[in-house]
């Protein structure tokens, strides 16, 4: 018969011995031990131990088939820890082990190494000769295989051994089925509890980040994961990462569904957390406004009033040292008021006086009057006021100052008329004098007046406006400068 003993030669080596009764009792004991356990993992290791005892073999192992048809789990007995560690990676189910996977029927061999399917052992693997393997079928499906090697005493495994192992495997299958159900029930209960706690957390009044933390923690129990955390994807979206350590079984379809539902709950918790944060921010802003109003209405006013009164007391102080001290205290008070204002209104600066545009134009004209020897006439025509913060008025005032200085320096004028027109989309400035007319082009570039003209043209260009200087029909010059109202940068 050579190397094969595929169980048709039962009659030839079936030798009921005196120890048949002992072995039957052994089988019953093994079955009891296997079925006494509840969790799948305990059942499996008990099967391995019982089979090894029952068939009197040196080594025993149990391979569990994965979805890919190879071994997903491999439990073994008989190898000492050091040897197992040396072997490292557990078999995946090739060679002889693969034979049993591809053809799930009991297989008995006198010598493993002689079989054509044998791929030999890896280095450090203990020598093994006799072999018996039996599939474990759970509900018409091959769950895995039991393998025994090296029958003690050196002989081959017998047909009786095979019968015993088949009987044990059948019983083991029932235990596996029960354990699976039990595990599934336990997991389902755990899932349900976790799910309930998640719902409770979502509905609770706890702080939003605490809720999120609880939901993520329960997520680990929900699908028996090792790590659950939030992350961001490349687009900045929120991602729930659910992970198991490498080597553990991947999430099955059922667990994937659970994870999908869980991610919706996390989204809910996140949304709630954000909404809460938003509400909290709104509340803080409202509170800030209320405090600011109170400060404005009461604190600053009283501080200013008291400070002014202190300031007024100065007239009763005759000692110069007293004045110095008072001035120092007033400086402190001033700084305090300014700080308060900056704090309350978030101001970058706290200007003492802000003038209206006409007032500033009037001031520029007034300054020039001292040099001109007369006060120019100003005409304002405003239909739309420039927005606060626009840079255009600043440029306009600069140009006006420059234009009046030029007239004072070069024009020998007797009168100047300034016109400012503000419309919805542009401002116009005209400065007309009755002097000697515009400067010659040649001189314009070499005198300071020429630099002034360049500057005015540049201001207009920067804002997307225009600048011109023309000779009047009646003598003198008229400067015209215009810029769009929304202004340019700077």
């Amino acid at each position, binding site marked *: 018969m050579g190397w094969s003993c595929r169980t048709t030669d039962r009659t030839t080596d079936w030798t009921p011995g005196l120890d048949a009764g002992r072995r039957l009792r052994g089988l019953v004991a093994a079955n009891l031990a296997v079925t006494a356990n509840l969790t799948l993992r305990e059942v499996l290791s008990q099967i391995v131990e019982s089979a090894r005892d029952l068939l009197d073999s040196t080594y025993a192992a149990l391979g569990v088939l994965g979805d890919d048809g190879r071994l997903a789990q491999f439990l073994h007995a008989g190898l000492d820890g050091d040897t197992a560690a040396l072997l490292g990676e557990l078999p995946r189910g090739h060679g002889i082990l693969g034979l049993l996977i591809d053809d799930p029927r009991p297989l008995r061999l006198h010598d493993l190494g002689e079989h054509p399917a044998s791929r030999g052992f890896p280095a450090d693997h203990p020598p093994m000769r006799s072999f018996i393997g039996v599939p474990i079928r759970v509900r018409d499906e091959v769950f895995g295989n039991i393998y025994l090697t090296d029958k003690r005493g050196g002989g081959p495994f017998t047909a009786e051994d095979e019968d015993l192992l088949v009987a044990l495997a059948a019983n083991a299958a029932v235990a596996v089925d029960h354990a699976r159900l039990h595990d599934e029930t336990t997991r389902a209960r755990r899932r349900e509890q976790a799910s309930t706690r998640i719902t409770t957390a979502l509905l609770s009044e706890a702080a939003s980040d605490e809720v999120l933390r609880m939901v993520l923690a329960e997520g680990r129990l929900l699908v028996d994961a090792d790590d659950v955390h939030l992350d961001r994807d490349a687009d900045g979206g929120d991602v729930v990462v659910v992970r198991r350590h490498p080597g553990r079984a991947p999430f099955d379809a059922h667990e994937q569904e659970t994870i999908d539902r869980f991610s919706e709950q996390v989204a809910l918790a996140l949304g709630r957390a954000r909404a809460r944060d938003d509400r909290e921010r709104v509340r803080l802003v409202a509170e800030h406004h209320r405090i600011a109003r109170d400060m404005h209405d009461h604190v600053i006013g009283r501080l200013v009033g008291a400070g002014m009164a202190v300031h007024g007391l100065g007239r009763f102080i005759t000692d110069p040292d007293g004045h110095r001290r008072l001035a120092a205290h007033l400086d402190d008070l*001033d700084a305090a008021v300014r700080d308060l204002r900056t704090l309350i209104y978030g101001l970058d600066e706290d200007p003492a006086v802000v003038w209206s545009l006409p007032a500033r134009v009037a001031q520029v004209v007034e300054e020039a*009057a001292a040099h001109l020897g007369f*006060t120019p006439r100003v005409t304002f025509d405003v239909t739309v006021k420039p927005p606060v913060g626009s840079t255009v008025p600043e440029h306009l005032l600069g140009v006006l100052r420059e234009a009046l200085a030029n007239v004072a320096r070069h024009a020998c004028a007797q009168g100047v008329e300034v016109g400012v027109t503000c419309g919805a989309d542009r401002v116009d400035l005209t400065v007309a004098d009755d002097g000697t007319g515009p400067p010659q082009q040649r001189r314009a570039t070499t005198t300071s007046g020429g630099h002034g003209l360049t500057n005015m043209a540049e201001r207009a260009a920067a804002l997307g406006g225009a600048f011109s200087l023309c000779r009047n029909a009646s003598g003198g010059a008229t400067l015209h400068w215009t810029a769009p109202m929304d202004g340019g940068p700077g």
Partner: protein
Amino acid sequence: MQTPRVDPRAVVPARSVVVVEDDALVREQLVAAMRAVGIDVRAAVSGVVRGYDAVVGTDPDVVVLDDRLPDGLGVDLCRRLAADRPDVRVVVHTSAMTTTEQRAALDAGAVAVVSKNVRPDALLHAVLCSPRQFPGRAGAWKITPVRSVHPSDVRTKQA
């Protein structure tokens, strides 16, 4: 009280002022500070209604308006005065120098917005240097320049 140091070239016109301020302490100090530099304070009152009556009744050059009054906002009174008394220059005296406040005041026709401070220098400067306005198409924005004093010229003795 020493008279303020004034630029000899600048002629300080005799200014008349009405102060509208709801805080009695602040009002009293403002009046004292203005009188100390020779400003003719014609009335010092609280509230929009009394403020309006005081301006109409005494016809000052300038009115100093608190931005928040018991019966309304300073800018509301400012707007009414710009329409009814365009000759009167309005200086808004505010505790909150925000862009919004500035805009509201200047849009309402104020000639200047002044931040409330312990020392009255900035306010006195604004009152003394505010250019005269004249009636025309842009209402409160029609102005004509007058001789002004430099800010550094306004100094009270004790500060």
